[in-house]
């Protein structure tokens, strides 16, 4: 039986061959330096690099260090990691998929039936885990009208071309010659682009444009409602997702549903806080921010939190150099813990 450690870039794997093959894999890019693995490890084999050093300065080292001589490949770190950064595989299978081992109950889902593809979640997601792909309807099918330019009356001034908000009018500008003393050879309206807003008609100095918006005159009876439908799809990268709940909170139609791995409390000590911003940078869930003053002389709170987005991972507490943050985990949402020693280990990360 031999334990070997392999470091590839900043990713680490610790492997032990023997009766059963065990392999602990660490993906550096997913780690938030929260320190839960360090806390739960029964043999103190894991050391987490200070979060401030990782987010503020460039470091060549991984976010955690695993001592392969101490690691017993028990998998507790892998089961408690809320970021999918650690994974223990036995005989090639992840213990997160094994019933015998507890796994955190965490998920994020977007209901395709409800989603209107507004992309608010995609923008808000602090881990860029959400991709919303949408296909917009053809603009020409959502408008109805007629437009015609009387080329005899038109003086080729180009005002309509300049003013058209839909870039639907094009003049073929040219330099006049003695045999053709005009400044434009043609004026073209792209009816796929025109929205019949009638700006050109109103702006034309010689009244050369005849245009009418049928919707304004008769309502949108000749618009097919199906043509205005927006089709799309949503995708959440489960590996990148930290289950913070931003998508759920920002969604205007309640299409997103998030289950968080931990419950607890986050307490900030405004007096101790010196405003160094390390916690704001370390938080993977965009829970913390520095509020701007709304008016001169008005002093907002130093550090603002919104626990709606907090998963109580403890990264902020670990990052704070002056002990101004306290994260308490009161509940771990997981599949059943079947062994007493594991229960004890899980309980150990509940208290501070």
């Amino acid at each position, binding site marked *: 039986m031999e334990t070997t450690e392999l470091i590839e870039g900043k990713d680490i794997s610790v492997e032990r061959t023997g009766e059963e093959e065990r392999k602990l894999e660490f993906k550096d890019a997913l780690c938030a330096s929260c320190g839960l693995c360090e806390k739960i490890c029964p043999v103190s084999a894991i050391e987490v690099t200070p979060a401030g050093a990782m987010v*503020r300065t460039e470091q*060549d080292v991984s976010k955690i260090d695993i001592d392969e001589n101490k690691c017993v490949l028990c998998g507790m770190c892998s089961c408690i990691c809320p970021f999918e950064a650690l994974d223990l595989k036995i005989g090639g299978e992840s213990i997160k998929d094994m019933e015998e081992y507890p796994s955190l109950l965490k998920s994020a889902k977007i209901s395709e039936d409800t989603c209107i593809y507004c992309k608010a979640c995609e923008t808000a997601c602090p881990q860029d885990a959400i991709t919303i792909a949408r296909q917009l309807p053809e603009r020409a099918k959502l408008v109805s009208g007629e437009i015609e330019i009387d080329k005899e009356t038109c003086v080729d001034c180009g005002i309509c071309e300049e003013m058209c908000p839909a870039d639907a009018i094009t003049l073929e500008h040219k330099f006049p010659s003695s045999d053709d003393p005009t400044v434009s050879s043609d004026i073209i309206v792209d009816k796929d682009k025109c929205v019949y807003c009638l700006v050109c008609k109103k702006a034309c100095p010689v009244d050369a444009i005849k245009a009418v918006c049928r919707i304004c005159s008769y309502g949108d009876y000749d618009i097919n409602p199906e043509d205005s439908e927006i089709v799309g799809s949503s995708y959440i990268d489960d590996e990148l997702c930290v289950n913070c709940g931003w998508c759920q909170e920002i969604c205007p139609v309640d299409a997103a549903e998030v289950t968080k791995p931990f419950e607890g409390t986050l307490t900030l000590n405004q007096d101790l806080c010196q405003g160094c911003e*390390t916690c704001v940078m370390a938080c993977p869930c965009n829970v913390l921010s520095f509020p701007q003053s709304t008016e001169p002389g008005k002093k907002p709170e130093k550090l603002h939190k919104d626990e709606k987005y907090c998963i109580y991972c403890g990264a902020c507490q670990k990052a704070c150099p002056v002990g101004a943050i306290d994260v308490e985990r009161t509940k771990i949402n997981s599949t059943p813990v079947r062994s007493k020693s594991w229960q004890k280990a899980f309980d150990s990360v509940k208290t501070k």
Partner: protein
Amino acid sequence: MPIGLKLYPELCHGCGNCVIACPVNSANSPEIAGGKGPTDDVEVIMIVEDGEITMRNSGLCGKCGTCAESCPVDAIRLEELE
């Protein structure tokens, strides 16, 4: 190898940015938070002495990297310690 605070006094311009920016220093001393030098009885991590950065108490460091970020000449860094 643990990561810790490392000084490069030969690069230091003595501006004192790090001393003021350091949240541990400012938590320990309102004078520092206000941009002044600390009084003698205050425990600080680092201080500018005779125009050069000097370590006073590296054990207080919370390794947040604020000092390193504020230093214009990379004279204070969070690095792997030998």
